[in-house]
């Protein structure tokens, strides 16, 4: 990480410390990563890495540094690395977060930083889990527009207020941080999970959609919304700040008011 190639001299003179002129502080971190390799052992173990990182680095950068410079066998998912694709949800210091949105300087660097795969889904290798059960629940709530009316020639118009109704739940990036933070999901993995409910909410409350009743009927299942215990783990875990628990409560109310 030493910058050998000198930057071309700036045309504007900036005093050090202004506009990125200052040096980025470095610090040492102790990274403790949960490793699992079914080809070697059925047991998962902890691996420790000591790294010198910069104040601008995220947990993902630390993982990259390990993979690129120390141990190439370390496996984790990441795509965009900027908090949009939702690939790198993991359990950092016991909390579900996106590695690409968690700055090392915001964590307690005096203690080891633990990195584990998200809980409740089968681990495939190191930090990679099998997301298939998660996506199956997502598919079951039919996360697509179903409109029984005539196909419009241009677009389906919607008022700003109608759009606002489900704005929060459109933000989901399907990272599974919420579902894998839910204690009810941990037990047996039967619960639909917050993410599926959030994505159902996005269409149930969309004025252009006609299949809200079908989705409510699906979520009225014994593994549906009624298994939510409002522990708020999901709302806390969501890297997009979606009020997940509130969305689940709104779906509960919608089912209730439809039935009664």
């Amino acid at each position, binding site marked *: 990480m030493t910058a050998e190639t000198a930057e071309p001299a700036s045309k504007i003179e900036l005093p050090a410390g202004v506009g990125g002129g200052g040096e980025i502080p470095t610090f040492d971190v102790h990274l403790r990563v949960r490793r699992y390799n*079914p080809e070697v052992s059925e047991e998962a173990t902890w691996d420790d890495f000591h790294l010198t990182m910069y104040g601008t680095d995220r947990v993902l950068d630390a993982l990259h540094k390990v993979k690129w410079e120390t141990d190439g066998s370390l496996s984790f998912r990441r795509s965009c690395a900027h908090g949009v694709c939702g690939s790198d949800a993991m359990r950092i210091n016991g909390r579900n977060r996106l590695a690409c949105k968690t700055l090392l300087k915001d964590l307690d660097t005096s203690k080891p930083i633990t990195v584990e795969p998200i809980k409740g889904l089968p681990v495939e290798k190191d930090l990679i889990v099998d997301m298939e059960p998660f996506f*199956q629940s997502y598919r079951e709530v039919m996360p697509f527009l179903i409109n029984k009316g005539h196909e419009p020639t241009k677009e389906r118009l919607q008022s700003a207020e109608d759009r606002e109704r489900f704005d929060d739940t459109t933000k989901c990036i399907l990272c599974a941080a919420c579902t894998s933070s839910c204690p009810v999901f941990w037990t047996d993995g039967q619960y639909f999970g917050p993410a599926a409910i959030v994505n159902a909410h996005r269409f149930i409350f969309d004025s252009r959609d006609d299949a809200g009743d079908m989705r409510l009927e699906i979520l009225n299942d014994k593994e549906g919304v009624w*298994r939510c215990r409002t522990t708020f783990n999901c709302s806390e875990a969501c890297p997009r700040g979606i009020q997940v628990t509130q969305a689940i409560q709104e779906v509960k109310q919608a089912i209730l008011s439809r039935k009664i």
Partner: protein
Amino acid sequence: MSATIESPRSGRIAPQYRRTGGSRGNFEMIAWLFMRLSGVVLVVLIFGHLFVNLLVGEGIHAIDFGFVAGKWADPFWQFWDLTMLWLAMLHGTNGVRTIINDYAEKDSTRRWLKTVLYSATVVIIVLGTLVIFTFNPCPVVDGVPLPGGFCPA
């Protein structure tokens, strides 16, 4: 030691995650609603019960066999206690049922715990209901009143 790893994206879902037999019907919804409604009613019933038993009049010092007998001679308190018994038992049973569902990991454990739970609930509800309605403070056995000192000789 090598393990065979299935090829990715084969669309398979680990069997323990597969939802079997969708439950049609609204049982879980009704159970959820019952918890909230019974909870509200129980707050009134239980604090009323505590207030009347522990604070009114001589308060806690007045409680004895005769006090309970006196209360159950009144249909109002019979009804109050019966409602409290049923709601509290069903509310509690449903709560524990939920906890078992959430924490028991094996289906067999779940079944056993629920069997014990439901048996206990039935016994307590039946016994309690029987006591509230058939309670007789001055039973007479073979023409001889049982000793007690609460009853007029």
